[in-house]
Structures are given as structure tokens and as C-alpha cells.
């Protein structure tokens, strides 16, 4: 099927995009990589009257260092995220997770900002962003504001981005020298996560000194496994210690049951994958 009719604009600055959003009102939709939006339009699950294509805005693309932060433009593609040296050095977890997203063609077009704004509970980039305490810079009619990851993801497909606003940047603290692992469980290649665990840990002389863990698809939003994080601190990174701490991984989660897995099984997966992710990150 093909999409219903719409008008199309391709602004070249964020200000022009905001003006287009204001003029388009409710019926306008932002187009980033289009890898979630175009399938939705083709299936006619949405029929916006105006598409605002963000691909012509250079200021939204690329990765840069800013003091103790690494700043990623919302329109940076998955492909560019996986190849970026600054991210490799300071924010390895987001790179690890991005490698598991979809397939090469989708990664060539899809963007970090688009994936996070879409906020699919099974999407792979929200849990790492939460684990990494990322900040989200949102531009709107009254200027820009910054939202912490913990406040950004509100519900299934719902974020703190309001009407007339757009996500411009994702700012990550530096985790230089931390180990990272994204452990994704799905049935076939190219499929979405049934459950996945994003873990990054700092190991000093065999002992875990800090840990950050985020869970994918264990609720409508990504979830931090805080009790596992605190149980790991001060432990030597042995298989036994890690597996024991990982037993608390499903605490505070509310996973759905669907054709892929029941909620009990998702809780089981969260524990097992947390153990694997932390061990790999610490190794």
C-alpha cells in the first residue's frame, strides 16, 4: 500500500522546522529516518496532512564532545553511531545496542533521535539511554529545555516531547573505560527484542566499582535495574556474584504477555540476560 496524500516540507534549520510545526498544528508529523514512520503511513495507521522532513538540517547531525559530555544530534543515523570513534571511547553501550537494531538498510536511514522519540517499548535504544543517564534537549516555541532520561520516557510510545516541539540532541555523560554489553533476546534476525538488557560497568582491579543497567521491554517504558546495580558495587566480577545480584533484575518491572512470551518468562529472561550482560561488560 502507499501512504495517503500529504504536503511535504524540508526545512534547513531547527527554527524553520519549528515554524512548520506551528503552522501544521496537530496534523503535522516529523520525518527522521522514516523507518518507523513510513511503514505506519503505508499501512495507513496514520494520515498526517503535512510531513516535515528533518533530513535537510545539518545542525541536527553528528557527534561532538562538549566538556564532560558527548552530544549526539537527533538526526545522526544508527549507521553513523556504530562507526563513531568518540562514542566508541566514551559511550560504548549506545554503540553496542545500536549494532543490534534491525538490519543494515534500516540502520543506514534510521536515526537515534527518531528511535528515542518513537519510544517503542521493544526498541533497543531507550534502555541504554536510561542506563547512561542521558539528557534530552528539546526545542520548542519557547526555546529549548533539557529533560533527564528518567523523565523523558512516559509511557508506551509517549515521551516528554510536547506538541510543537522536537528533539534536537541527546547528551551522554562520558563512561570512559567502562565495559559495555547489550544482551538482546529475539527469535530471528532483524526482529525486535522480546527482552534485552543494557549494562555498563566500571571494573577496578577485578572489583565492580560502578554499574548501570537498563531493561528493554519489561514495561511500557525502559526500566533501571537499580537493586542489581547496588548489589554489584564492591563485588568481584565472578560469575557467582554476578548471577546472584542479577536475581533482582525483574524487581519493579511490569512486563506484558504476548505471542512471543508470557510475563513470567520475560522476568526469567531479565534475570538471565542481566547476568550475561554484566559478565560480558565486566570481562
Amino acid at each position, binding site marked *: 500500500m502507499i501512504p495517503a496524500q500529504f504536503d*511535504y516540507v524540508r526545512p534547513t534549520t531547527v527554527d524553520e522546522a519549528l515554524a512548520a510545526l506551528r503552522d501544521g498544528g496537530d496534523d503535522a508529523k516529523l520525518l527522521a529516518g522514516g523507518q518507523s514512520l513510513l*511503514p505506519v503511513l503505508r499501512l495507513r495507521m496514520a494520515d498526517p496532512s503535512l510531513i516535515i522532513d528533518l533530513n535537510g538540517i545539518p545542525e541536527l547531525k553528528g557527534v561532538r564532545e562538549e566538556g564532560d559530555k558527548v552530544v549526539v544530534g537527533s538526526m545522526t543515523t544508527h549507521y553513523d553511531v556504530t562507526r563513531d570513534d568518540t562514542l566508541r571511547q566514551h559511550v560504548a553501550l549506545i554503540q553496542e545496542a545500536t549494532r543490534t537494531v534491525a538490519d543494515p538498510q534500516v540502520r543506514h536511514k534510521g536515526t537515534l533521535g527518531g528511535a528515542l522519540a518513537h519510544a517503542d517499548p521493544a526498541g533497543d535504544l531507550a534502555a541504554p539511554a536510561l542506563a547512561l543517564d542521558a539528557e534530552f534537549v528539546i526545542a520548542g516555541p519557547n526555546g529549548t529545555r533539557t529533560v533527564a532520561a528518567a523523565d523523558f520516557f512516559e509511557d508506551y510510545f509517549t515521551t516528554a516531547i510536547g506538541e510543537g516541539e522536537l528533539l534536537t540532541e541527546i547528551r551522554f555523560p562520558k563512561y570512559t573505560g567502562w565495559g559495555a554489553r547489550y544482551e538482546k533476546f529475539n527469535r530471528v*534476525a532483524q526482529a525486535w527484542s522480546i527482552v534485552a538488557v543494557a549494562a555498563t560497568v566500571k571494573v577496578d582491579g577485578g572489583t565492580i566499582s560502578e554499574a548501570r543497567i537498563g531493561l528493554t521491554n519489561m514495561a511500557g517504558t525502559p526500566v533501571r535495574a537499580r537493586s542489581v546495580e547496588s548489589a554489584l558495587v564492591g563485588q568481584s566480577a565472578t560469575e557467582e556474584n554476578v548471577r546472584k545480584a542479577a536475581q533482582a533484575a525483574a524487581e519493579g518491572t511490569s512486563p506484558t504477555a504476548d505471542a512471543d512470551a508470557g510475563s513470567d518468562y520475560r522476568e526469567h529472561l531479565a534475570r538471565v540476560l542481566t547476568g550475561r550482560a554484566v559478565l560480558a561488560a565486566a570481562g
Partner: protein
Amino acid sequence: MARIRTTVDGLVYEDDVEPRMLLVQYLRERLGKTGTVIGCDTSNCGACTVHLDGLSVKSCSVLAVQANGSEVLTIEGLERDGQLHPMQQAFHDNHALQCGYCTPGMIMQSIDLLGENPDPSEQEIREGIEGNLCRCTGYQNIVRAVQDAASKMKPGSAPAAESGAKQTVAGGGA
């Protein structure tokens, strides 16, 4: 209507298109390049894969207006002077197709893969074509074909993925 100017398989085209027109529709219905096929409604199958400014994309998931000012390479632009591209030749030689529906996308994605990684392992090939579904072959001969093409396209032994199509390469099995 939006005016677009796009280079497709080496020729420049100018057209008025509806913004909602998908790139794959433009290629097939306007330019008559039916070598690129549509296999699904969900962006999963990869049959429609083309290169947009040198990177593989699913042309059902890009708007034609977004290709304005860009270069598109389709399966129809691979052959040069009557010679198949080494990847096409390898698919032929290794019997890497049965019904052939997935083949245009498989070949375009496999060329993209070798551009990225000229000497992939079997596992890397399987992951490199994970966005392309084949309902017939079980993938075995597709993987073999990509290995074969990789060995023939290695620097020194034959041309590189994209630019190499201009040169000729001996076909006919290993």
C-alpha cells in the same frame, strides 16, 4: 507536486512527483525500472533494496522526494557493456536463487556488504544480509555466492564493489 532531480543508474531524471510517492514506486512506475521489486508492506523483506548515495536502503521506506539531488543505483545499473557485475555472476554461478524474487535486493545488499567489509566470514555474510528474506533457497547458496564474489572482487584480483562494475571480470565458476 514536488520537482525532483535524481541520478538513477547513471542517468539524470527530472520529474514532478506527489510527496507520498515511494522511491520504489518512482523507480518502477515512472522510470520503468521494474528490476527492483516490492515484496512486503512492512519494510521487512529487503526485496526493494537499492543504493542511495552509496548506502543500501529499502526503497519502499524512502520517499521519492527524499532522493532529490541524490544518486540511486538499482540492480539494473550493475551490468556494464554486456558483462554482469561480479556479484550477479556469482549468484548465477552458485545457483543462489530459485524463484528469484529476493535476488535484486540480495545482490544490492551483498554489494553494500562487501563495500563495508571486503572479506567477510560466513557469519558476517549472514548478518550482513539479515534485512533480506528469501523464501526459497535456505540461504546456503546465497552465502556461497557472496563468498565467491568476495574472493573475485578482492583488491588486486578484481574491481571493488561500486566502481568496479565498470570493469569486466571473468565469469564461469571457481
